[in-house]
């Protein structure tokens, strides 16, 4: 009997992620590469290396769902779905009691409510500005001459963190520059940045409400300092996936599987 395999391809603004699963839902391989300038090329490359890792050929993949901002550029996909649906399904696969998903992606962040099947019931997204997203952290890391890992450690600072607004990335960068000029300690600024993102997410969470367990997805979930602040603010423990960046691709692979099942 020929086995069927399924793939999810998430072409995001910063990274392109591929996930391949077997019919039992087991993850065979996961790949994350930078998207760069050409989304369709990144998708091809990431897909090829995921196949290689799983020791599979293209023929063995029965259905492929593309998602993310570059979903339209994935020529080999058999279907496409928004990353919002995919993150819901992916988070539900990893943590079946998930009722709310907070996804902090490269250039947007969203709060998604899902039902017991992982189907999206409602969602809200950031508007017009990358404040409160991965891109925000990247810009700030660059300005502070830190890498993203250094920016992610939990901090125990004396006194208050530096206040940084959460409405505009560019203005927030100016604020950081002036804080640096005033010799504000760097960890106070980092703490302020983490808090700024948390405040932004908090606004979205309150507008949609929390149901069930809360799972945090997207690359920013690797930022332990931010996770800690967010947990404090929400007053609950968050589910953190082992690979938070590939949850969208995982959800896409499961959606590919579902659509294959429905059509066969």
């Amino acid at each position: 009997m020929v086995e069927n395999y399924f793939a999810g391809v998430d072409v995001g603004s910063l990274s392109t992620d591929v996930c391949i699963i077997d019919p039992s839902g087991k993850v065979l391989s996961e790949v994350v590469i930078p998207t760069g300038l050409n989304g369709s090329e990144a998708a091809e490359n990431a897909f090829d290396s995921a196949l290689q890792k799983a020791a599979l050929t293209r023929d063995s993949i029965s259905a492929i769902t593309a998602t993310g901002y570059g979903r339209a550029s994935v020529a080999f996909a058999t279907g496409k779905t928004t990353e919002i649906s995919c993150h819901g399904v992916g988070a539900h696969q990893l943590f079946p009691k998930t009722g709310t998903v907070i996804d902090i992606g490269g250039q947007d962040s969203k709060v998604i409510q899902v039902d017991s099947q992982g189907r999206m019931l409602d969602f809200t997204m950031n508007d017009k500005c990358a404040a409160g997203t991965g891109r925000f952290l990247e810009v700030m890391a660059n300005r502070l001459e830190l890498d993203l890992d250094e920016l992610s450690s939990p901090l125990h600072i004396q006194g208050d963190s530096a206040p940084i607004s959460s409405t505009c990335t560019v203005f927030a960068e100016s604020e950081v520059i002036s804080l640096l000029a005033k010799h504000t300690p760097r960890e106070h600024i980092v703490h302020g940045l983490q808090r700024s993102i948390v405040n932004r997410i908090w606004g979205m969470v309150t507008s949609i409400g929390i149901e069930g367990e809360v799972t945090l997805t997207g690359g920013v979930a690797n930022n332990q300092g931010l996770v800690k602040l967010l947990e404090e603010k929400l007053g609950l423990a968050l589910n953190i996936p082992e690979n938070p960046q590939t949850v969208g691709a995982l959800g896409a692979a499961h959606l590919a599987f579902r659509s294959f099942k429905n059509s066969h």
Partner: protein
Amino acid sequence: MSLRAEFKYKIMKDYGAPALMAFQDFKKRKPRPTPEAFGPPLKSNKRLKEILTRHYLLSRYVPGVRKVAWVTSGAPVELLRAFDFYTIYPENHSALVGAKKQGADYCGIAEGSGFSQDLCSYARIDLGHMLSGKTPAGKLPKPDLLFCSNNICQTVLYWYKAIAHELKIPLIHFDAPFVTTQQTEADINYMAQQLQDMIPILERVSQRVFYLDVFEGFLKRSMETSQTWGAILNAMKAKPAPMTIFDAFGHLAPIVSLRGLPVAQDYYHILLEEVESRVAQGIGAITDERYRLMWDNIAVWYKVRFLATFFAERKMNFVSATYTNAWAETTGHLDVKDPWTSMAKTYGQIILNNNLKHRLDLMKGMIKTYSVDGMVMHSTRSCKPYSVGQFDLRKVITADLNLPAVIMEADIADERVWSEQQIQTRLEAFCETLEGSKNG
């Protein structure tokens, strides 16, 4: 009034405009192909275009012949009709500029003169037009009078004040107290009195005498036209709906800007006949209507086609909108036997001058009567009175009716605010929720 100007106006009205229209028609003989997702286009579109082109064309020959008034969309225009003002609707004109994707240019002119980017784009476009003389309609006549009402927003008052100051012309403001719970007797009397107090000013500006029976004639026609418009919207209860709300956005122009005139009255009879015949024949606006949606707020004028196609391709049709409904909602109050009080009731209670509870009940009712499956709310930077409260309305409606709803941030006429990728993702996710809720 110069005889020469009057002669030119009469010639244009009776011969020039129709001839030019026929020529335009002859010139443009290649209609844009209709995408497969759409049903046959409405035949009335042609007549609509004729009416609007003629209206703007004739407006050039009006100075010296008839007095010109610039009027806001919610103002009680029937009173002006009794004095034979040629009316121009800056909001309508700004929507036209927006639809031609020129909004940013005009807004830029106003911003260059110090008007804030946070000001309504209808206002900025109009001020941009006033300051530069630019218009896609060729030329607009300078107003002799400005006539506004704050029943749609407070901005109009300051916007029209800016024009009055610049052009040194009189401004009449019809003050409509906001309906926090219910219209009070005092509110109604206050508004009715204002209308009567306007008569001597209008007589002076127009150099015409007021005749009550003439005014009542316009009022009656306006009422009848609004009722026909209501009947047209009502026809969209049919499955499939005979037109989309994106069609209705266009067909709204005469009821807004030519209300009270025979041309609008006649037009809506033509349109009503057409939509009713489409219903009888089962002709839908889109070829395969699977989902029925409601629209909240003013149109995104520069993206009407994009949005119409986006949803039609997903077998979704907008069958109702709070916006198009606004010109049919309160006109039932009009009463020729009691013109002043009935106008106060009609114009004082329109959706933007009414409380959120009223809006919630109205929307819930429309969702039910039009068999609506989901709602798209356009949160527009320009129109605060329309956009404030949308988050709460969405929350309550989603919870009470278990109805998927999405809010998209955009603007009515300033295309610089449009962020296509973000909006598209949001709308696609909304469609996925809707499909999930109906199939699951």
